[in-house]
């Protein structure tokens, strides 16, 4: 297991786009320490801020995270990255495979555009987790995002595929959703606003927009299958589906093929 140990707080935001197990396995100790990760005109090299220990394995541990570590695990295609601590924006953005585990909190846009793999955040996530960055057509696009703590506003904004599980989430969870599945124990106002298709499973919610209509309580085979699929990821989310569920259909402002299941 290769390890990067943070020696002190970074003086500027760092870009970890090119720091992944596969890339590091092909480089020598000196080459890794000289990798440019700074974002200002002064710049920072990996060895300036981190102690580097390499073993060419497909697992990388970052000991001591920081909210200035941007794009950790972005575009990861294989292997595993574990961070003990916080990370900054765009955690696992565009990730295609492998696994990412964060023991602390993540900044905004976690898992944006991720097409595969599993991202687990033990703490909280910022706004737009599983959401789309500026000018991107989609947010989460096939990966699995698990947020054990709370998520900010716009969780799963424009998500197109994949699964998001979160504890509490802010306003506009699942806004402008294109497709996919999002489950949260509680969300703020206006869940699913502007959603076209997709499924939201909610334990509780704030104000429901007038463009969602209640379509009654249903007992569908699909819900039992979904519960079974979620149980391996998070039993408490799977339990939401065991309760009687009210179904809302919307958003009527769009093509209205989305659904929100609310545990009664």
């Amino acid at each position, binding site marked *: 297991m290769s390890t990067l140990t943070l020696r002190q707080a970074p003086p500027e935001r760092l870009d970890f786009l090119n720091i992944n197990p596969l890339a590091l396995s092909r480089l020598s100790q000196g080459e890794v320490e000289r990798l440019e990760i700074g974002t200002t*005109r002064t710049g920072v090299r990996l060895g300036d801020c981190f102690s580097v220990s390499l073993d060419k394995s497909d697992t990388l541990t970052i000991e001591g995270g920081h909210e200035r570590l941007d794009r950790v695990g972005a575009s990861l295609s294989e292997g595993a990255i574990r961070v003990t601590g916080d990370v900054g924006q765009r955690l696992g953005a565009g990730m295609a495979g492998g696994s990412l585990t964060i023991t602390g909190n993540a900044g905004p846009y976690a898992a944006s555009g991720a097409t595969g793999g599993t991202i687990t955040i033990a703490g909280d996530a910022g706004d737009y987790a599983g959401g789309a960055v*500026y*000018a991107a057509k989609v947010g989460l696009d096939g990966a699995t995002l698990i947020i054990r703590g709370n998520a900010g506003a716009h969780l799963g904004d424009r998500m197109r595929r994949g699964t998001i599980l979160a504890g509490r989430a802010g306003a506009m969870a699942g806004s402008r959703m294109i497709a996919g599945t999002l489950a949260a124990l509680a969300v703020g106002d206006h869940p699913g606003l502007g959603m076209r298709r997709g499924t939201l499973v909610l334990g509780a919610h704030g104000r429901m927009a007038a*463009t969602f209509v209640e379509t009654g309580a249903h007992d569908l085979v699909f819900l039992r299958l979904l519960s079974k699929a979620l149980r391996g990821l998070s039993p408490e989310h799977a339990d939401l589906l065991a309760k009687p569920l009210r179904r809302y259909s919307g958003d*009527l*402002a769009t093509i209205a093929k989305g659904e929100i299941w609310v545990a009664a």
Partner: protein
Amino acid sequence: MAAWVKGGATDAGTAIGAAASLLARARAPVIAGLSADVAAIRAAYDLAGRIGASVDTAGSAGTYADLASLSRVGALTSTPAEAVGRADVVLVVGAAPWQAPLLKRLIDAKPTRGRAAGSDRLVLAVGANATASLSWPAEGGLVEAVGVVRAYARGHLAGDDIPGQIAARLIAGQYGVLLYDPAELGEAGIEMLQGLAMELSEVTRCFTLAVGGVGQDRAVVPVSAWLTGQAPRSGFGRRVPEHDPWRFDAARQVAAGEVDAVLWLGAVPVARPDWLSRVPSVALVADGEAQAAEVVIGVGQPGRDHGGVLWNEQRAALTYWPASAPSDLPSAASVLGALRERLVRGQAAPRSEAAC
């Protein structure tokens, strides 16, 4: 020329020298505001590129609400002149557009061109307690309200309550205009409003029109596009322009302690943000006052002290404004040019020195 360093009046050369040394020491400088004529905006981007600064504008909240929606769903837009000349139905979304001078012009005159020429102009309101033909306060917030009107326009909701009547009037109109303030409505609301305009355009003509921008943001957007190929919030720390609206949000950067010098460009007067006083700063402002920043350099206001190309709200275009009261105050572009000369000679610290 009015110039101050740490509150004490001084001459131009000393102030520019102090500003240059403040910027030269900085690891992550920011050039913010950008409320100026096109020449000064160009000079600001040139300086940013040479010193590795990032750029943000005075009205970026509204600008990015508009741009983010535009980048995803496009936009159906009109101009003030077209709205005044052709619109027979105007939907005012939110409270802010009621402060715009354009609204008075719309209320005071009838359409004079196109299919609706000579007919009465109907003014509808959503999200404000306004005196309009139909007014819907919309307690659920503006985004939801626009969504409800859109659902009626699509035929997904039916009935003759107020939002239903508003949708019916818009459908019956010959030329509809949806008036909004981008900062008030936000990205999600603007996207919903563009969707409404697109639904209505299936059966009639309907366009959106943004009012109430801050500073010269509307000038900065095309200038940054032609200089960098990107929207305003770009950073040059890694030599190439990188666009990241979250990372280069100046207020966020200051709050997170990532910035160590700010150059505020306010040649066209605009409110200065609170965070400016929390970081070493240089201000190039037309309404110069000693306490505005650590280093303050008074510059001419384009269109008053000297000529300049500015955003013309009425024509919805960049136009040249000659000096209405010429003075010997330097232009912001010339001060930024002088700063660039000093900084290029002094060369900033090279990248990749040991940093931690």
